[in-house]
């Protein structure tokens, strides 16, 4: 084992302000409560004393938590130790490393620190967190860990990632104007606009009614608002680029995230073309990365295996990304379903279809939105042929391809029974060949 940065073999501590940032909302709340009373208040001496004690206790706790947390590189492992009374030592073998994300929540950006999240492979999908490092350390540490991981993987026979020093190549980015337009004509955006318009009209007629309406629908309005906001926050200044380690996603308004996805980990790909986006030729591209459970203390998006690699993009951009993820994939030459499917799925009928190459299957479906899925045959977990009563009557059946993520449902829907039977046999054989080749 060779070392690149020898000083990192020793125990290292995190950034001293880590605990403050980790406290997150609690810190902000504490500041809001305490700062005014310390600066101006001072109504009574005892109140001031209590405040002082609170601050002192919190500071000491933060200091202790910083003092007992340390990390180091030990051979090919990353070792993290934490805890004062209950010592907690974790080891993460770097050969299992899938990706390292750099996450900067709003408060962390204010303080100038960043969190490194190491996503490990395996069915447990463990995740090491280095929260937080100072901003200038984050990039070098990330690069070094990735380098070590690549070297550790080289011991294995099926090591893939070429150690080329190719620079990042921008594959797609998202202009803010397009993001806003796309959100306005998405279903959530339309609902939000309609609700806002309705409220303004009612307010013009009678303020009292409007206030009541807000009160009644308040919960729901907050929900829609939050959804719109999180979509905007994620999509703001979003970009995807191609690196030797995989696809590098970058973006965010308040919380900046950087994330790398290794193409080999992709279980399935889905492209959604909503009805209202079609005049603009826009689509959304999502990758299903191997399944893992959400763990405590992670952000909302982190536990979802479905990663949006293109929130709003054009078809050429999507094609370019697909070329990177699934080089051998079927082009648009879909086999249409039998005409009698019109009776069973009148809305889907025009979109249904499927196609395949030796290693990849493509299916298309959707009622209003056009949904296209690609599944590499080597990643398919199991196949199912399902026939419902209506399908039996029409002599149809569907073939399902089950993948590990489970978020992309690739279904060869409503095929002729004879075709479905032969396709099932054929796909099972192809999948075996694909697994053997992998």
């Amino acid at each position, binding site marked *: 084992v060779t070392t690149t940065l020898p000083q990192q073999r020793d125990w290292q501590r995190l950034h001293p302000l880590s605990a403050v940032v980790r406290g997150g909302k609690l810190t902000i709340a504490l500041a809001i409560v305490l700062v005014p009373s310390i600066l101006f208040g001072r109504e009574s001496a005892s109140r001031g004393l209590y405040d002082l004690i609170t601050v002192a206790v919190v500071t000491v706790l933060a200091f202790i938590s910083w003092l007992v947390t340390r990390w180091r590189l030990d051979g090919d492992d990353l070792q993290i130790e934490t805890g004062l009374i209950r010592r907690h030592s974790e080891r993460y073998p770097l050969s299992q490393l899938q990706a390292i994300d750099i996450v900067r929540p709003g408060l962390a950006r204010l303080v100038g620190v960043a969190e490194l999240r190491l996503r490990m*492979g395996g*069915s447990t999908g463990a995740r090491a967190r280095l929260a937080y490092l100072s901003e200038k350390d984050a990039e070098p540490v990330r690069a070094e860990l990735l380098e070590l991981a690549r070297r550790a993987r080289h011991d294995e026979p*099926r090591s893939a990632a070429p150690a080329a020093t190719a620079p990042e190549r921008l594959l797609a980015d998202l202009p803010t104007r397009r993001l806003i337009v796309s959100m306005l004509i998405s279903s959530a955006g339309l609902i939000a606009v309609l609700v806002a318009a309705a409220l303004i009209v009612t307010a013009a007629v009678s303020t009292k009614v409007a206030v009541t309406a807000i009160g009644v629908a308040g919960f729901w309005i907050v929900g829609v608002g939050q959804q719109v906001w999180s979509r905007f926050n994620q999509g703001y200044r979003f970009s995807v680029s191609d690196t030797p380690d995989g696809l590098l996603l970058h973006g965010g308004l308040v919380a900046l995230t950087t994330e790398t996805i290794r193409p080999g*980990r992709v*279980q399935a790909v889905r492209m959604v073309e909503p009805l209202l986006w079609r005049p603009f030729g826009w689509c959304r591209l999502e990758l299903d990365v*191997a*399944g893992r459970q959400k763990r405590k203390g992670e952000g909302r998006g982190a536990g979802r295996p479905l990663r949006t690699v293109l929130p709003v993009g054009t078809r050429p951009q999507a094609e370019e990304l697909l070329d990177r993820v699934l080089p051998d994939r079927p082009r648009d030459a879909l086999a249409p379903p039998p005409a009698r499917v019109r009776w069973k799925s009148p809305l889907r009928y025009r979109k249904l279809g499927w196609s395949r190459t030796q290693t990849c299957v493509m299916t298309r479906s959707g009622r209003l939105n056009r949904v296209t899925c690609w599944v590499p045959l*080597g*990643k*398919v*977990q*199991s*196949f*199912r*042929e*399902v*026939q*419902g*009563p209506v399908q*039996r009557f029409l002599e149809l059946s569907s073939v*399902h391809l*089950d*993948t*590990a993520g*489970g978020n992309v*449902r690739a279904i060869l829907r409503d095929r002729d029974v004879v075709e479905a039977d032969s396709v*099932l046999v054929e796909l*099972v054989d192809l*999948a*075996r060949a694909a*697994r053997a080749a*992998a």
Partner: protein
Amino acid sequence: VGAATLVLAVLGVVVAALGAVVWGIALLGAVLVLGVLLERTLTRRFSAWGYLERADDLLVRRGVLFSRLSVVPYGRMQFVDVTAGPLERSFGLATVRLHTAAAASDARIPGLERAEAARVRDQLAERGESHLAGL
């Protein structure tokens, strides 16, 4: 259907005991019809179940109204478990279930004799090992 039959049977006995003989007979007639239906559906459902161990994968078939045929390659199997509920145990039966990384995979073989279940389990585990493929 089973629960309905049972309720009707109890009701019929009670009503007949109370003296309303005509109603009692009508209810018992309904019990008879439902019982025959139940027997038919159960038989069909039972005969729809089937499994086949092939060289590289396991086939499991089930369902009458919705018929399903699952193909699970041994290499994709994560683990096999054998369960036996109290009812199954009283008949000396067990259920073998295959788990893959996909939650949608649906490969379950219920109602195996216990010795057969153990044999299937061992066989699957052995074949899973020899075919093992990474994610």
